[in-house]
Each structure stands twice: as structure tokens, then as C-alpha cells.
């Protein structure tokens, strides 16, 4: 069972947890991304996220389906934020429930690693003296 959301509004960890909780599950692993105040020693003022929304949801659906095939997990919730985020805000939450914890950990890590590689979402870091699209240039 897969729950995917792209949202311009603040993400809520409890919503994701409530969705993945299941009486047949013994463990849940949750990854929560947060906006850091600095990158490579330079102060970050805010982040701006942009998504190719329909394709992003399709790619997220694919990686979640892959995870359900690769590991004995029950439920996955992936919520990703778009728009302007301040330091401390949450760009992404990934929650995975499973009967046994190893599968939940492995699947959660696979999901965030793969999301960062394939899902068409872009992040701009805004500094006091400029801004940069992350990963755009070598």
C-alpha cells in the first residue's frame, strides 16, 4: 500500500506514521529531511523546491512499487514539499512499516537514495549573495 503526496503546505510526520501503522507491523523506519542552515560552510537563507508534478508522482510510484517487490514491507508513505522552505522546515518524509525492522530500514534508505537520483524535483539554495540550483553543474 502506497501513499504519495506532493504538497505546498507544511508536511506532517504524524499523518505519515498513522498511515503506515498496521497491527501486523513490528517496526517503522522514518526518514525526515530538514532544511539545513548551511551548505559547504555557507549560510543558507531558504530553499525553493520545484517539481514536474505528474512525472514526479509517477516516478515516486515506481520506486515505491520496486521497494514493495524487493523487501517484505507493508506500507509506504512518501510526502514531498514544494515551494519556499525556511531553515528547519521539512522537504520530505518517507515512512515504511514492516513486520521486521531490517526490511523497513533497507527500504526507507533505498527510497530516499533513489528519490534523490530519479524523481524530477529540483531545489534551489538561496544565500545572502546569490542562489544556486543544487547538482546542476559538475
Amino acid at each position: 500500500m502506497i501513499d504519495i503526496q506532493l504538497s505546498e503546505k507544511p508536511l506532517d510526520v504524524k499523518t505519515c506514521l498513522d498511515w503506515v501503522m498496521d497491527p501486523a507491523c513490528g517496526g517503522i523506519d522514518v526518514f525526515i529531511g530538514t532544511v539545513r542552515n548551511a551548505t559547504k560552510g555557507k549560510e543558507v537563507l531558504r530553499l525553493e523546491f520545484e517539481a514536474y508534478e505528474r512525472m514526479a508522482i509517477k516516478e515516486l510510484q515506481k520506486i515505491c512499487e520496486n521497494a514493495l517487490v524487493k523487501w517484505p514491507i507493508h506500507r509506504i508513505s512518501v510526502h514531498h514539499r514544494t515551494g519556499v522552505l525556511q531553515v528547519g522546515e521539512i522537504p520530505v518524509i518517507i515512512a515504511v512499516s514492516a513486520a521486521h525492522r531490517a526490511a523497513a530500514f533497507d527500504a526507507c534508505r533505498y527510497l530516499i537514495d533513489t528519490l534523490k537520483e530519479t524523481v524530477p524535483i529540483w531545489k534551489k539554495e538561496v544565500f545572502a549573495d546569490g542562489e544556486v540550483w543544487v547538482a546542476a553543474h559538475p
Partner: protein
Amino acid sequence: MHLKILAFGIARDIFGGSQTVVEIPENATVSGLKTQLEAKYPRLQKLASYMIAVNDEYAQPGQTLSATDEIAIIPPVSGG
């Protein structure tokens, strides 16, 4: 044929807008489109990489394009 290309992230900055239109022969491929885009927008060659998506899927270089496809340029992603 005319193709409309959607742009996101740094590609939007390079195109100077959220889409651009290119004139390209019938049955052109993804590779052909990339060549044409790079001629029009040389800054694309400075990117770490970029992909073309056709109808919400990553496209292969040899894939042919049609005027009814939804085509997008996908610069290096950085979600999460």
C-alpha cells in the same frame, strides 16, 4: 514540426521561461532534439547532465518524437 519543450529548475533559467518551442524535422529523435536545444541554448552543455522526458517518462536517445507528445527537459534532479 513544432515541439513545445517544458523546462524546470535551471533549464527554466536557461530558456528564460517555463517552456520553449523548437522547429525540428518529422520523426526527429531525442538525440536530435538535444543537439538542437544545445545549439539554441549553449549553457545546456555546461550542465552536469540532463535528460529528456516524453509523456512523463525518461526517454532513450533513439526514441522518436511526435508533435503530440508532452516533452520536458529534466536537468539534474535534487529533491529530498
